């Protein structure tokens, strides 16, 4: 039976643990870097998942699209007209066979008051289909119906945080003032996670017809949310919708769009842009820290080789060729990486659990993160051991043996 492989590994392990202080610092340098890397990566994944979950919770999954009035935005400011998106456009879009439903919306920030408490809040004029489009139902009471639309009823639904804001215990049936007019509260909407610029819990919904004729006094809408049939090619849908809107808005070829089409991908990219910048920055720090740990490993390896020079010379005298000496130290560095990687992984899980305790971020650990961190550890450890290993292989046994 061949036992040389196990003897070889045993020999390396014994040498590795023969200088525990040296090994401890090599391991520590790598472990700290890996903890940083793992933590940043898993928290980054967590942030992304949170955005995705938030989008999914408002029915902005892969089969959804948002069209917003006004185009050519520069730093958030519209450079085209904003009053061209009409309900007629929505009717035309609804005719497309892949469109499952369309929920137009008219928006304004208005003063809302009740018994001396006044707040500037986002008021949205919506259709009954809004509940389906946004997966947002009343917690108590009812939603806006066709009758409300027909009669341009002065009724409203309020976000979950509104009753607390106005100190109203039982808000159903209460009349609150919106832009100087009394609106009867017919329902309270269920809670939604915070997402975007406006808190879901602080919104007020009124019938779209009431909003357009009695509150905002405008015939255009601010946007429309579309849900597509499953399997719709979003790119194709975007192309067709753009064509319809440009034609209806009589835009010449040189003119830019006077609307914006927002796909879930675009929304994610906007919401995660800042997160990504921070992540890149943190990742750079982690990589710098890995490089520093690599340099530490290199120096400790040099010290180790210096200290073990007579033993290396002996190995060479007994028949180890330069390749075997290099292999010996590279395998040793591989073990350092594996041990550091595994311990770094466990400590990262521990650390991120602590982070998740104090922040809304829920770390995501996967085999991918583990493989990534092990790869980084192995790459760093092996790369930075290469130079010391080559130096070890060049030790002249003759010169060392004379000193004995």
């Amino acid at each position, binding site marked *: *039976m*061949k*036992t*040389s492989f196990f*003897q*070889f590994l*045993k*020999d390396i392990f*014994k*040498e590795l*643990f*023969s200088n525990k202080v040296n090994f401890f610092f090599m391991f520590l340098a790598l472990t700290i870097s890996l903890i940083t890397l793992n933590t940043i990566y898993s928290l980054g994944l967590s942030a992304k998942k949170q955005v995705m979950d938030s989008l999914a919770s408002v029915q902005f999954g892969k089969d959804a699209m948002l069209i917003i009035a006004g185009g050519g935005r520069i730093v958030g400011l519209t450079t085209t007209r904003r009053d061209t998106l009409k309900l007629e456009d929505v009717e035309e879009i609804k005719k497309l066979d892949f469109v499952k439903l369309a929920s137009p919306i008219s928006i304004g920030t208005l003063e809302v008051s009740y018994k001396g408490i006044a707040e500037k809040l986002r008021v949205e004029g919506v259709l009954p289909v809004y509940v389906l489009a946004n997966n947002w139902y009343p917690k108590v009471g009812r939603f806006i119906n066709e009758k409300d639309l027909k009669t341009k009823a002065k009724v409203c639904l309020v976000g979950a945080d509104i009753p607390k804001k106005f100190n109203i215990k039982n808000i159903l049936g209460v009349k609150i003032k919106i832009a100087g007019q009394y609106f009867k509260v017919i329902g309270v909407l269920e809670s939604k996670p915070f997402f975007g610029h406006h808190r879901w819990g602080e919104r007020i919904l009124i019938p779209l017809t009431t909003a357009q004729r009695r509150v905002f006094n405008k015939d255009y809408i601010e946007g429309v949310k579309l849900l597509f049939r499953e399997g719709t090619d979003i790119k194709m849908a975007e192309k067709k919708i753009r064509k319809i809107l440009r034609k209806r808005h009589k835009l010449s070829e040189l003119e830019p769009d006077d609307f914006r089409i927002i796909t879930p991908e675009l929304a994610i990219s906007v919401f995660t842009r800042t997160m990504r910048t921070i992540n890149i920055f943190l990742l750079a720090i982690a990589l710098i820290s890995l490089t520093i740990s690599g340099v530490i490993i290199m120096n400790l390896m040099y010290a180790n080789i210096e200290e073990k020079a*007579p*033993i290396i010379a*002996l*190995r*060479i*005298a*007994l*028949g*180890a*060729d*330069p*390749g*075997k000496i290099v292999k010996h130290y590279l395998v040793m560095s591989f073990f350092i990486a594996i041990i550091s990687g595994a311990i770094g992984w466990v400590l990262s899980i521990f650390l991120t659990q602590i982070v998740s305790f104090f922040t809304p971020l829920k770390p995501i650990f996967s085999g991918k993160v583990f493989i990534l961190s092990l790869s980084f550890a192995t790459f760093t450890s092996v790369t930075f051991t290469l130079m010391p290993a080559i130096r070890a292989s060049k030790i*002249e*046994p*003759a010169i060392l*043996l*004379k000193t*004995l």
Partner: protein
Amino acid sequence: MVKKLVILKNITKSYKTGKISYQVLKGINLEVEEEDFLAIMGASGSGKSTLLNIIGLLDKPNSGIYILDGQEVSKLNKKELAYLRNRKIGFVFQAFYLVPWATALENVLLPLLYRGNITKEDEKKAIELLKRLGLEKRINARPNELSGGEQQRVAIARALITNPKLLLADEPTGNLDSKSSQEVMSIFKELNENGITIIMVTHDPEIADFAKKVKIIKDGTFIK
């Protein structure tokens, strides 16, 4: 006819320290036959260790021809030299030179690690060697648990595990007391009687007396 195991022809070796060059070996000629036991004596700095390094393929001469077991070896590369060292030469050093974290048995098996495989038979052979050298109770002991004499016997077992044709010993009793020195030299004598060629460097005439032949080196050349 007895075969010549080592043939050195006009071997020179010099070292440079800064701009100054020292000629350590000045045209050494030497022939060692199989089953010889040669002692090389000389004062400190005479070049005896340098000569042993060249014979042991641990160093290369600047000029001259070295034929080991019928093969010209002075122009071989490091890998080829390592291969030959592993198969033809056994080393015994003054400071024993055992791997401190390995047991006596692991130390003995070390040269075989570089051959690519260690078999159960090799392990048996290593244990037999240790037993033959009186170390049956020290097989799993580490070097720091062994006396000087025991360490040197482990080193001898390590040198013998590969069945070398040539055993090179550099001051093998230099770190031993007189009792252990006698024991080690008795082992050498027995090994030589069993057919192993030994070249030993020493400055001790009493130790040199164990050899069949003695050569004295002075200022890089043999004077006797």
